[in-house]
């Protein structure tokens, strides 16, 4: 290079252009005409980049739920507007505001990422939009920022790692090294394990999110700390990388790994043997023995030729829940108070069996131990091993002003 300023331009252009790539890539192609007396649902999830696998699973499950409901909620036709949050809180808020203000949706469903959810919470609460969060479980949502019109069909983040912490006690684990990504959910998860785990925490690491994919430095640190066990929370594609690198580092035979939201039905086909023998806690497993779940899993496999994950299962539940609420207000969806009360009753058949909400609109539910196993046909699937905690309620419900 001859001109001294050029590297500046180059560096700046590269950063700006590459960062913008994800945005332009995914141009939403919705724009159906609004018909009269149609229920409009805004659906926020991630549909671009690697995490699109999660978003697609949620969308597929929601669509399957609508199929099962005859494409109607409480007898009214439904229009769903899908929006991509690109895993970015700022984009998530923007899309939330767009759905509320220009699309004037009646309900908003979705949200994978806790940071996106918390960022979007204010416009949702201010506009009193009836919202069903189907994955993100930030502690804020369960505690101080709980709202009469915001419900979760999933969990509060601390619950799942708290369950695995209980299981680690049962296994006699005396010391642990904790790892997770550096955003709201990662912090919640590490707190969750510590709330139940009675052993010593010999180290913890929060890694850059979402772009850090190499965990060599952190795994070396874990090895050097000589813990009895490693706990990890790495959702989506990061889970694949983490479990792979854990196995490659030769730690698998030395320090057992315990997980929350790291091995799921989406990552298992790629992890295969590496996931076998790594326990995880979950509020839903594909083999839960109730009729609703059997139908959901079988029809999903038939329609999409792949297995649904917990992301999909919790999202599927949103459809019968909304259906029951719209039915209860006889289609008068302007009656938000009626909708709220009807949703609180949770009068629907969940894929998790019995379903009820706590005072803060977070489900009170069971958490199971799951394990991956190789089937006789060479495929892999997750199985329920045992029940870890029954009817667990999150520890933030006291902080929620709603009683």
């Amino acid at each position, binding site marked *: 290079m001859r001109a001294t300023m*050029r*590297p500046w331009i180059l560096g700046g252009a590269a950063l700006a252009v590459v960062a913008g790539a994800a945005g332009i*890539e995914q141009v939403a192609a919705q724009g159906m005409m609004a018909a009269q007396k149609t229920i409009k649902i805004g659906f926020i999830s991630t549909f671009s*980049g690697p995490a699109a*696998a999660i978003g697609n699973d949620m969308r597929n499950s929601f669509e399957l739920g609508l199929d099962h409901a005859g494409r109607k909620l409480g007898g009214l036709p439904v229009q769903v507007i899908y929006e991509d949050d690109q895993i970015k809180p700022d984009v998530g808020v923007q899309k939330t505001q767009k759905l509320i203000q220009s699309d004037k949706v009646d309900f908003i469903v979705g949200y994978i990422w806790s940071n996106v959810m918390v960022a979007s919470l204010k416009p949702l609460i201010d506009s009193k939009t009836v919202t069903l969060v189907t994955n993100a479980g930030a502690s804020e949502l369960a505690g101080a920022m709980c709202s009469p019109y915001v419900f979760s069909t999933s969990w509060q983040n601390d619950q799942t790692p708290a369950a695995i912490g209980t299981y680690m006690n049962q296994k006699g684990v005396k010391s642990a090294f904790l790892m997770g990504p550096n955003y709201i959910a990662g912090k919640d998860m590490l707190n969750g394990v510590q709330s139940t785990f009675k052993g010593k925490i010999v180290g913890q*690491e929060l890694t850059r999110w979402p772009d*850090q994919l190499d965990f*060599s430095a952190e795994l*070396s640190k874990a090895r*050097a700390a000589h813990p009895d066990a490693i706990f990890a929370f790495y959702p989506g594609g990061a889970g694949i990388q983490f479990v792979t690198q854990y196995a490659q580092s030769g730690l698998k035979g030395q320090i057992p790994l315990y997980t929350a939201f790291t091995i799921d039905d989406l990552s298992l086909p790629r992890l295969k043997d590496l996931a076998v023998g790594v326990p995880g806690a979950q509020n839903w497993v594909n083999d839960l023995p109730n009729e609703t779940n059997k139908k959901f899993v079988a029809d999903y496999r038939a329609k999409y030729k792949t297995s649904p994950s917990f992301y999909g299962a919790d999202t599927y539940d949103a459809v019968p829940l909304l259906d029951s609420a719209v039915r209860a207000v006889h289609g008068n969806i302007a009656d938000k108070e009626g909708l709220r009360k009807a949703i609180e009753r949770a009068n629907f058949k969940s894929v998790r069996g019995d379903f009820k909400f706590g005072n803060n609109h977070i489900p009170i539910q069971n958490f199971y131990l799951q394990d991956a196993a190789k089937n006789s046909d060479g495929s892999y699937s997750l199985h329920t091993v045992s029940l870890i905690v029954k009817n667990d309620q999150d520890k933030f419900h006291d902080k929620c002003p709603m009683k």
Partner: protein
Amino acid sequence: MLYFIEQCLNGVQLGMLLFLLAAGLTLIFGIMDLVNLAHGSLYMLGAYFAATFAAFTDSFVLGALLALVATAICGMVLEVIAIRPLYGRPHLDHVLGTFGLLLFFNELVRLVWGPAGMTLSLPSEMLTAVQIIPGLYYPLYRLVIILVALAVAALLYVVVMRTRLGMLIRAGASNREMVGALGVNIKLLYTLVFGLGATLAGFAGLMQAPILTVQIGMGENILILAFVVIIIGGIGSIRGAFVAALIVGLIDTLGRAFLPDVLHSMLSVDAALTLAPAISSMSIYMLMAAVLVFRPEGLFPAASR
């Protein structure tokens, strides 16, 4: 001490991966004066080809070799079809043109391989750690990456400094017009250089595939780091890319490894845990800024090679 050495190895390993990517980028930019944002796409193609061929042949090594050939061919075809019209035009046109290619390749991969991503599994004997010195265990595959990348660096050095092609490459980097005037087929030289750059990118992609991931857009984040490397190292300089890649790899890794503890001595656990990843990811950009201020031509300017 052993722990420090292990973390340094982690840094070197990341640096080697960055070097493979940055070497191709700096060759193309230094010799052809082309800003190639599609370099990350070739990195992605290398990984996808390797995953596909490895599944097809049931052999990691065979799959990797086939993938290298395929990426080289892709690179040269790409140069002939899409890159040639960009020569001699302003850098902004390069950025726009190759950014278009980046989107095109992402979409192409989505159409051909689907959105879910792929897995390139290592042979099971690679899933282990070896004892390098007593008490120090290091993942075997990461060690392989370091050694192979060092071999590639040596090979590149020999090619660039000791062969006729390398002489032309160096000549092209310092005075293109003169090289053309001396009767060298510049078009062919450019195609070869682009092919070489593509192969290096593809090689980086397939080497990291078993550790990181094979998915759409995988080249975009690491491309930013590669640009940082060539800016620090001096654009067009392979040696600069090598040194800068090592520096960036070590800073990133050692920052992640030791900053939390350093900060913890001053701050609460929570604050240290949250701050450390942010500061360690900033540090390489601060280094780049410092280099731009004090040595705008980079640590090893191409002219003084």
